[in-house]
């Protein structure tokens, strides 16, 4: 597919024909015909689903900018008349900044922990001649089938025995562990693409294993690292069950749990709640804009093949 694309690419700029952008190369006519025949069934379905996704997202944004009184008076989907940031201010007044900070710590901690153990492991799985080391790959794959909810009680047991209950570390450890299988999957598949000759060249230069790791493996798995970091960060940021079961105090509250607390305390303040939801998702939205390809590609790479 890639080769067809590149050979079809012409030097002349695509003009007219209602094209929005000039990046798409002009297709030879025969292929073009196939593409342009509208896929009516799926198109209508996709249109419907578009509405089903877009309406709640619009509701979320519009409500977060609406005055509290306006929300009750105007109806949920009307255009907001008086835009206000009051809701956002109110959310910060009831301790949102603390939740945000805790979530940041948890996400950063989980990312660092996963990368620290998964990178060397992926390197070993791809490069080791030891049968046992290579077999550990299947062990991690097996981990994909373990749902966190089903083992939440033993995890609670382990965390309390380690005297970590109600700390941010208590959230970081299982979050990282459950992100490990996919992370190793992504990293091994990006390392398998490194040509053997490069390792041999390093060896001829007299490089030790650790030098090979630092000078060859790390730079070449950069895109895999970014993918893993985004994936783990997202898991840590959005996880609900580990904080629910492993923490309890106000000081260790992370965003998803904080949102839930808002709901129980200020349930009637829907604009405030929606502002909190928007704020909690804002960093992820930013990430989506910046690293969408990595994020989506990484999620699919874990399972798609």
């Amino acid at each position: 597919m890639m080769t067809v694309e590149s050979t079809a690419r012409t030097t002349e700029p695509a003009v007219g024909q209602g094209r929005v952008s000039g990046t798409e190369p002009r297709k030879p006519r025969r292929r073009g015909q196939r593409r342009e025949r509208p896929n009516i069934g799926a198109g209508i379905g996709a249109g419907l689903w578009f509405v089903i996704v877009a309406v709640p997202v619009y509701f979320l944004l519009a409500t977060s900018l609406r005055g509290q009184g306006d929300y009750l008076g105007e109806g949920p989907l009307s255009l907001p008349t008086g835009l206000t940031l009051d809701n956002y201010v109110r959310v910060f007044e009831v301790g949102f900044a603390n939740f945000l900070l805790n979530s940041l710590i948890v996400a950063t901690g989980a990312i660092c922990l996963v990368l620290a153990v998964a990178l060397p492991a992926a390197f070993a799985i791809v490069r080791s001649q030891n049968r046992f080391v290579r077999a550990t790959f299947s062990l991690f794959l097996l981990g994909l089938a373990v749902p966190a909810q089903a083992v939440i009680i033993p995890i609670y047991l382990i965390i309390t025995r380690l005297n970590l209950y109600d700390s941010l570390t208590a959230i970081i450890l299982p979050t990282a562990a459950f992100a490990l299988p996919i992370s190793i999957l992504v990293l091994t598949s990006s390392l398998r693409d490194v040509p053997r000759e490069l390792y041999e060249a390093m060896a001829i230069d007299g490089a030790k294993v650790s030098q090979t790791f630092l000078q060859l493996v790390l730079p070449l798995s950069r895109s895999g690292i970014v993918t893993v970091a985004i994936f783990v960060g997202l898991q840590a940021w959005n996880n609900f069950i580990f904080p629910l079961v492993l923490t309890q105090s106000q000081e260790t509250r992370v965003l998803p749990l904080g949102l839930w607390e808002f709901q129980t305390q200020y349930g009637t303040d829907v604009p405030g709640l929606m502002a909190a939801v928007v704020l909690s998702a804002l960093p992820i939205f930013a990430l989506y804009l910046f690293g969408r390809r990595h994020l989506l590609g990484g999620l699919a790479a874990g399972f798609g093949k």
Partner: protein
Amino acid sequence: MSQAARVERPGILWAAPALVFFGLFGLGPVVVVAYLSFTQWNGLETPVWVGMENWQALPGDPNVGHGLLISLGLTSLCWLTQTPLAIMFGAWAAGKQRIRAVASAIFFLPLLLSTAAIALIWRALLDPNFGLAPDIGPFMGLPNGNFLGNGSIALYVIAFVILWQFLPFHMLLYQAAARDIPRNFYEAAEIDGASRLQQFFSITVPQLRNTIIASSILIIVNSMTFFETVLLLTNGGPGTATRILPLHMYFRGFSGFEMGYASAIAVVLVAVGTTLSLLIVRITGYSKMTSQREGA
């Protein structure tokens, strides 16, 4: 060859930290939960071995039978809604038109929101007083718009919210896989005069087989154990109408402090999920298959 042999290879030590860590928090707990199911433990003191006591109590607990039944129901609902829609939209989004790229960018938005955020949005939308529910309720035969307070439809509403949350992920899998289907398959079918529907069922679906199986297993295992959405939307109510088995496990464990008993339920959940997955693998012959594509 002789050169390659001299290349120093990383040993077991490189994988050891990940193994130990994953053993402790990933695979170890599976063994521990089985052990805990034979103990009595209130979450504070040391677990006490009680043999089969928890297991013998399971059949007498009406919430276990009921919970298992509606868990299986919810799992079926999730699979029946997510799989066809994800295949259809994933294949659609794999196309090259710009509008498809823009639409998929919106489709993927729920993927970015946390379970808690999604539950909050839908709770507000489904609020029978101020949300959207009183407006759309009458069209769906529910004049008061009290979707979540109605025992006979609350589970369907939950399945819908779960669909809203997880469809993009499965769509993403199918989109990636559909992009790998060689174009000339379609071109050949086109020449043979196959309609688009025929192409979909005789090229797209068979080519996506591996992804369908993987995605289905994920849906089934997750639906059997995922309870956060239910906890946040209905708390198992009204009554016990949406008290799915994993939620019952959570309540018995972390509200009732009967961790041993809850562990027994957890083992049941894992067993059912694994059995269903193995059934899929067995029926479809997934494990015997190397590649569904010629020459690949």
